């Protein structure tokens, strides 16, 4: 029956190459010594080591979450490398960056140095946990913006990091956040001072390179009063047969009238068509609309990873603050995704919008899980949620788990959900008009995702559109 559909789901992972760079690597395993090693390698202040150790001790008391609708063998946390850095060499300019590394970025299409200048993108590149190159820093510094790695921020702006790190996602928030808090190696730090609109899109490309090295990124973005910033995160990883754990924490803080837009296109290795290998992506992303009239908007296009467990959320504390979540999650082959958002309304007249588009193909399983919580003081709060699922073929699954808790009678909460299917009949309709099946699927998917894609910055929207096409492309004949 669905032979055409079955053929539509196979495209080799284009980013499956591996860079040969000597890495300085900690022995496998996790204990307080590992944490002390990481902290000393990074010359961290005592308070940060304490932060890590406290998180680690708390983590030891915690249980891995079992509620997500995903299945995988038990992770052996003693079998993971927690620190791996390219051999340290002092670099004065981009010319000194390992050419092999630059070629890697080139293959990935990362816009760096000149290309970054042309694209107007400032890139803070994370390569196996250590920041190797940061561009545009000076230009941004002129308007008071800090855009650097977390390690540099700890060194140069310890008071800011200390004030905000852990303020949105506390070290003991959940199992993976606690793990991250204990062992995070690097990540990005963005600080937009009062009244400043960031003049360009900020972008970080993450990349997991060393086999079996877990990657624990930590990102912190703070927008002070009246500040605004748009941040792009793009992710790819080379292919390895063993599953790799990725447990990141992203914290956003928006003060009065501040506006943060955070966009992700995630294309990590998803395993092969039989479900072997691939990244476990267990991420905690949360934004705090701390000030009145602040706004945090998450846009994500999730196409990679063997397992995705991720709920970019907004805590709407300030009165009249706004939270948004726009998501496309595509799963194929044996991928599993349990993703969605949490909108926690605390302040008065807070508003949130959720638009989630799940696409399942192959034998994959795609779940939307979302919480809308209206607190007792959130008078006049409003939420609108729309969760649409699309199934391609007969063997995939889609689920929607909406949780709605309303504790204020003046709140308005709307939830809409649809499930549709790309069936043989739809494809035949296209084909009978001369349009091939692949083009038809791509046209249907892009139509389905339109509401989310139009939230993405232009260059990302183009990338996302292509990416979805690639993920579903096959040998249709």
């Amino acid at each position: 029956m669905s032979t055409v559909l079955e053929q539509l789901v196979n495209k080799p992972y284009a980013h499956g190459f591996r860079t040969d760079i000597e890495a300085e690597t900690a022995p496998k395993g996790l204990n307080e010594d590992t944490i002390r090693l990481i902290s000393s390698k990074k010359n961290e202040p005592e308070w940060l080591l304490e932060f890590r150790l406290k998180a680690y001790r708390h983590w030891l008391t915690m249980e891995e979450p079992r509620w997500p609708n995903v299945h995988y063998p038990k992770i052996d946390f003693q079998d993971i490398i927690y620190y791996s850095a390219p051999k340290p060499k002092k670099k004065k300019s981009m010319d000194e960056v390992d050419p092999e590394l630059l070629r890697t970025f080139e293959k990935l299409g990362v816009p760096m140095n000149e290309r970054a200048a042309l694209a107007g993108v400032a890139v803070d590149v994370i390569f196996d946990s250590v920041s190797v190159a940061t561009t545009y820093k000076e230009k941004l510094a002129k308007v008071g913006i800090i855009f650097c790695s977390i390690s540099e921020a700890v060194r140069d702006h310890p008071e800011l990091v200390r004030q905000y790190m852990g303020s949105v996602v506390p070290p003991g928030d959940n199992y993976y956040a606690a793990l991250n808090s204990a062992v995070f190696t690097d990540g990005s730090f963005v600080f937009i001072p009062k009244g400043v609109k960031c003049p360009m899109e900020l972008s970080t490309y993450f990349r997991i390179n060393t086999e079996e090295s877990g990657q624990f990124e930590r990102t912190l973005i703070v927008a002070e009063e009246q500040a605004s910033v748009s941040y792009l995160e793009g992710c790819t990883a080379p292919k390895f047969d063993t599953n790799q754990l990725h447990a990141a924490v992203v914290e956003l803080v928006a003060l009065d009238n501040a506006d943060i837009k955070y966009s992700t296109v995630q294309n990590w290795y998803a395993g092969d068509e039989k479900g072997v290998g691939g990244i476990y992506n267990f991420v905690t992303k949360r934004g705090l609309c701390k000030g009145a009239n602040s706004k945090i908007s998450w846009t994500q296009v999730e196409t990679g990873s063997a397992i995705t467990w991720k709920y970019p959320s907004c805590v709407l504390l300030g009165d009249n603050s706004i939270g948004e979540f726009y998501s496309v999650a595509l799963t194929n082959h044996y991928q599993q995704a349990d993703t969605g958002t949490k909108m926690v309304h605390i302040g008065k007249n807070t508003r949130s919008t959720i638009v989630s588009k799940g696409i399942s193909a192959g034998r994959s399983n795609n779940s939307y899980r979302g919480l809308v919580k209206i607190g007792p003081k959130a008078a006049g709060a409003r939420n609108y949620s729309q969760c649409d699922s699309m199934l391609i073929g007969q063997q995939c699954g889609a689920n929607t788990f909406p949780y709605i808790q309303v504790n204020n009678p003046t709140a308005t909460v709307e939830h809409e959900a649809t499930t549709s299917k790309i069936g043989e009949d739809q494809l035949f309709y296209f084909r009978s008009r001369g349009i091939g099946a692949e083009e038809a699927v791509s046209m249907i998917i892009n139509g389905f995702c339109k509401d989310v894609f139009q939230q993405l910055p232009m260059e990302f929207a183009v990338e996302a559109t292509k990416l979805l096409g690639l993920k579903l492309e096959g040998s249709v004949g």
Partner: protein
Amino acid sequence: MSATPHLDAPQQAGKILLEVRGLTANVAGVQILKGLDLTVRAGEIHAIMGPNGSGKSTFAKVLAGHPSYELTGGTVLFEGRDLLTIEAEERARAGIFLGFQYPVEIPGVTNSAFLRLAYNTVQGARGKDELDPLEFDDFIREKMKLLDMDPAFLDRSVNEGFSGGEKKRNEILQLATLEPTLAILDETDSGLDIDALRVVANGVNSLVRADNAFVLVTHYQRLLNYIVPQYVHVMEGGRIIKTGGKELALELESRGYDWVLDEYKAAQHAALNSPVNDSEDNPGFPPRPPFPTPTSLV
């Protein structure tokens, strides 16, 4: 209104566009087409009528290349080319068009984007120029006038939320856009009120040329008041059992199908008992009904 000008002129037999011989096809293991024969020449309009379940829609879908049907025998030549070995999209590019009985809804894809991609794909395959969005907009608005369609349909998702009549108009709009050589319209008249039927029929009539042909699958003769066929075929049990001129449709309307079946059974019985008749080309099948010459119709 029912004018089909080409019929008024003395006819030359056009070149053969479609030649179906002994076509058999299954769906889910059940044989639906059981040896179907049909020849369609350029400049002709054929109507295929018949009771429910006789295989009319299956035949239409098989011609267009629907993947759900398993072809088990027979041949289909389109302009001399073996149609059964090429995919549905290639058939469309080669000039086959199927007007759907139940047009499919495609949420999120606008009618204009869909029509333009279809048009440009087909044009490209025919070695003709493609149109950019602005040129296409002019082009498609002209076509819509022909069908009395509101240009607002261009911005709506393909068939989504369309009424039955709007969906059928949209099919004819696609027909007008793609200008196929052979159009098979599967119950285009069902679900249309009399005004919509007239609009759709006028649209089809305006597309009739000496170098293309139409096959209308229909239950009702009323469509044939507006689009006048030269040939009316009765389909039953997966094959064509009787062929006549346009007056056959009127006769079917007043007398039903039973008499045709009886006649067919009697003929088949006679054939089985006559060793002379089933000797050669079609053992087990009825003799192919003689086609009336076009001049006998006017």
